[in-house]
């Protein structure tokens, strides 16, 4: 089935050690999103891509970077993870509004990141 795939499901890294989370999609959606979700809270948008156009949320820390080498893949890089970065990271995709209004976002299973 077409879907949004996040790898790995669980990631453990050391304090300050760079880590990369990956997301791929078979939906051929041109918009991809990265969210951070802490326990029992709503997802918080970090950034999104319209095709290759990168859009950073104003309060996303500089420690967080993203790459989208092609339509199917998108990566979240955390350059120097701190204890406060431990969270679930959700990737989502959608068509953009030029495909018609009301384009819902489709989410992956998420990657749960732990910091030692």
């Amino acid at each position, binding site marked *: 089935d077409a879907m949004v795939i996040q790898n790995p499901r669980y990631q453990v890294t050391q304090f300050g050690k760079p880590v990369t989370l990956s997301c791929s999609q078979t939906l051929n959606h041109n918009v991809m999103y990265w969210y951070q979700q802490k326990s029992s809270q709503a997802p918080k948008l970090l950034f999104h891509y319209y095709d290759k156009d990168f859009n950073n949320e104003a309060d996303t820390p500089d420690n967080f970077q993203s790459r989208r080498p092609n339509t199917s893949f998108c990566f979240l890089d955390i350059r120097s993870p701190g204890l406060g970065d431990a969270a679930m990271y959700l990737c989502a995709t959608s068509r953009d509004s030029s495909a018609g209004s009301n384009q819902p976002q489709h*989410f992956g299973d998420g990657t749960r990141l732990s910091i030692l």
Partner: protein
Amino acid sequence: AQTVTQSQPEMSVQEAETVTLSCTYDTSENNYYLFWYKQPPSRQMILVIRQEAYKQQNATENRFSVNFQKAAKSFSLKISDSQLGDTAMYFCAFMEAGNMLTFGGGTRLMVKP
């Protein structure tokens, strides 16, 4: 800026009963879209139901229905014949043109056998 408020952090319901989750939002826009997402424990967030603001008719998807009150800026979710598999976090979300979602704080629903 839009805000979405879910006033019930936690709710519980007996299996087979009906439960209503509340959601209010604030916007100055006239055209927008509303969603309810379900996030089971350690599982994927999935879309439950959606509503276009220009439609007066309330959306329905099987056991899930909404009560959309545009003037009151209210968008509640009713789950009929609750099942154990309905246990999850439920997020109300708002979207205007441009695809960006604004989420509410979530309601944790527990369905009890």
